[in-house]
């Protein structure tokens, strides 16, 4: 198997030593294979955002080890981390985080521009991903001129344009209406199945989570249960998730 991400004994403690401390993560272990679509669920304050920040190199763990695509994150310095993020990681945020001063095309091109990819190649890649996500007609517009669903597609295109090893989603459907949310999730599912994009998505919405193949439930800073979709239909898996949430 091709392991894309491995988390080992990750802890995160807030507050200075000696002062009042709060442990958000209390030892997280899990791994992600290439081409997997995994959801992380948990209540508010369970530590899921902290975990995502650590996995996506935005934050550093107090102890423990994260390996992504054979790179041990703790061995990278600040500059290398930024580079690593630029090459290996794609992000989709709840509130899109598009730059409203740039056209959608420029927004999508940004990760490639950061890596100094040649202009012609950038154009080619932007066009390709835009076509794949069905947003090629709005590339010259500004984010303020398109709908929320379209914005999230632009954000997804930006997250994927540089062909990252893993795509992180932080409540990607949180700001979308149900139609737009379904569209986005279908797209993510398709990217996962057809292009083998590895996806790790944090959500508290069981409907979104049901698109994943596997779900990790995080509670009080630890991973509790794990659900596998296996051969079940999405509707059944959804029921299973609801059931699991109900047990807590």
């Amino acid at each position, binding site marked *: 198997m091709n392991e894309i991400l491995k988390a080992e004994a990750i802890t995160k403690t807030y507050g200075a030593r000696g002062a009042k401390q709060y442990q958000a993560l209390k030892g997280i272990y899990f791994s992600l294979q290439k081409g997997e679509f995994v959801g992380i669920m948990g209540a508010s304050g369970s530590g899921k955002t902290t975990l995502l920040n650590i996995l*996506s190199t*935005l934050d550093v763990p107090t102890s423990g080890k994260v390996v992504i695509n054979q790179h041990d994150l703790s061995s990278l310095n*600040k*500059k290398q981390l*930024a*580079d*690593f*993020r*630029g*090459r290996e*990681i794609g*992000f989709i*945020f709840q509130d899109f*985080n598009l*730059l*409203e*001063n*740039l056209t959608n095309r*420029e927004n999508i*091109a*940004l*990760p*490639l*521009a*950061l*890596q*100094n*990819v040649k*202009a*012609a190649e*950038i*154009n080619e890649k932007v066009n390709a991903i835009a076509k794949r996500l069905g947003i090629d007609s709005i590339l010259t517009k*500004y984010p*303020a001129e398109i709908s929320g669903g379209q914005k999230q597609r632009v954000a997804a295109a*930006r997250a994927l344009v540089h062909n990252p090893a893993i795509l992180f989603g932080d409540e990607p459907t949180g700001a979308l209406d149900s139609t737009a949310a379904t569209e986005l999730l279908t797209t993510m599912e398709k990217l996962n199945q057809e292009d083998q994009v590895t996806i790790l998505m944090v959500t508290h919405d069981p409907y979104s989570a049901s698109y994943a193949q596997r779900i990790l439930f995080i509670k009080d800073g630890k991973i509790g249960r794990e659900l596998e979709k296996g051969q079940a239909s999405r509707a059944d898996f959804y029921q299973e998730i609801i059931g699991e949430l109900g047990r807590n």
Partner: protein
Amino acid sequence: MLWKLSLTGIKSRRRDYAVLFSGLMLAAAIFYMFMTLAINPAFLKGALTISFSITKYVFIVGIILLSIITLVYIVYDNSFLLSMRKKDYGLYLMLGARTSKIGELIFAETLLVGFLATILGSILGIGLAQLVSKLLINQLGLQIHKFVGFYLPALLWTIVFFLALFFLAALWNRHKLVKSQVIDLLHEQQRPVNLRFHPVWKTIEAVLGIVLLAVGYWAMWNYKQLMTNSLWIGLITIVAGTYFTFDSLFSIVIRLLRRNQKFANRRLHSFTLGQLQFRLGAYTRILSVVSLLFALALGAITVGLNFHSLTDQAMESTYYDVVIYKHSPKVDRQLKHVSVRKTQNLNYKLVGTGKWQIIYVSEPQIAKEKLKYQHFYQKDGQAAYSTRTITPENIRKADEGYMQLSMLMPYPSAQIKLVSAKQYQNIKAKEQKTDFLLVNNFRQNFNQIEKLQHLAVKQIMDGPKVESSDITINLNNSKSAQYRLIASVASGFEFMGFFLGLAFLAMLASTLMFKVLSGAESDKLRYQMLAKIGAQVSWLKQAVRVEIGTLFALPAVLGIVDVLFGLQFFKSMLKNPYDRLWIPFTLFLVIYLLYYLLTVKMYEQLVLKNQH
């Protein structure tokens, strides 16, 4: 409860408030300093005995300009304050605070901040006035006396003026907040910006802007033909042209750069260009104002420093640096402190007393010695001098050369007679001698030279009674006296130009700084996002430097061009307004650069806080 919340809000943003507060304090301090100079008679009379009334008028113009700038400055400073507080106030409103209560809160806060800043600023101004005047007087070798930093009327004026301004600002803030919708307050930063662009209109505007600027510059260049008309034409066309240029030309250039895929797709270029285009839309007015202020400030310093050249004229009007009528141990001792380049002398014999005095000089000596004087004439309406030699012929004809020689002698009313060497020897009178000196480094050694000239005059005036009774020497004709006279007038102008220039500069640069900083709040998210998708901190810093650098550079470039043309106006007053241009320009640009660096640093602190 709300008051407590408000205070906590201020406390949590104390760094931002410190920036704001220091800006306001500086404005008050500058205003106070200028007021003391403008209305303190001790300074004016001490510095400018001669053109007191004219200078007062100039100072009043200065006060008006400074007031306008202060007003603009406070408007921007105030918008920075408001931008910081909007979200908090929106939150209070959402939690159910009454609008009137919030209005009261913002009113009190603005007024309180303003009041404290004014008081502290005035105190700072008193100290600064003392310090700056001392520094300037020493550095520039200005001739100013009797200047004390504290002057009550100036203090009162400053306080009244600033409190009035802050009262208006407080009313304005209250009005703005009360009228706003809660939702707008909370989401102020996410409001979409109009980024549409009408290429045809913009092109027309850009062409219009350039044409207007060209007309303005042409008018200033042809000052001689257009006279005062050029002032009006220049004022209108340059103000409008500057505005149009900022509103269109620069956005067109940025658009073209954005279209250039190769350029735009490098690292953060597209981001910087996007930011700039967006900013230029919102910055048109302030950039125009800053560019014009920049021109005014730089112009004031340039012209002010150029007044120094008046002393060149003073020095040109007299040929000999020092005239010594009689040697004495005291004079000779002082002579050692002066580096003499050349000495010429004239022997003479004085006969008779009172009206019948005759000075006999020998023709061969006059012919040989070739004493010089400065001939005055007008060239292009300006005073000019040429050096001429005193010849025996001059004395025979009793023309200009004769008059000049007579003025150099300690008996100006005596008649000068030219005689042959033999006749001269036969005249039975004591031979006397006058020395005419040319010295090295007149300016640098001015104090020693002046002292020597004083001693030389004193020596002969205080001589034995009989001898001195007919002596009249007008010390004012000496070069050192001329120099001191002109220098005192020039210093006044120089001081004012310098001071106004620096004050304007401080204001305009801080205005720009606050405008940039008030946008930092909404830029924070953008920079965080860029960091998340893999931008190095060093690239982000680079982007900040380029973005702010462009905003600082554009008005500076236009301002410099304005000054280069504007100096034409002063051609009638100053010999060469373009003389030693690099001194004020360098000084000015260095200070401007410091403001730029400070802005970058503070902006980084606000925007990249989490990335550090």
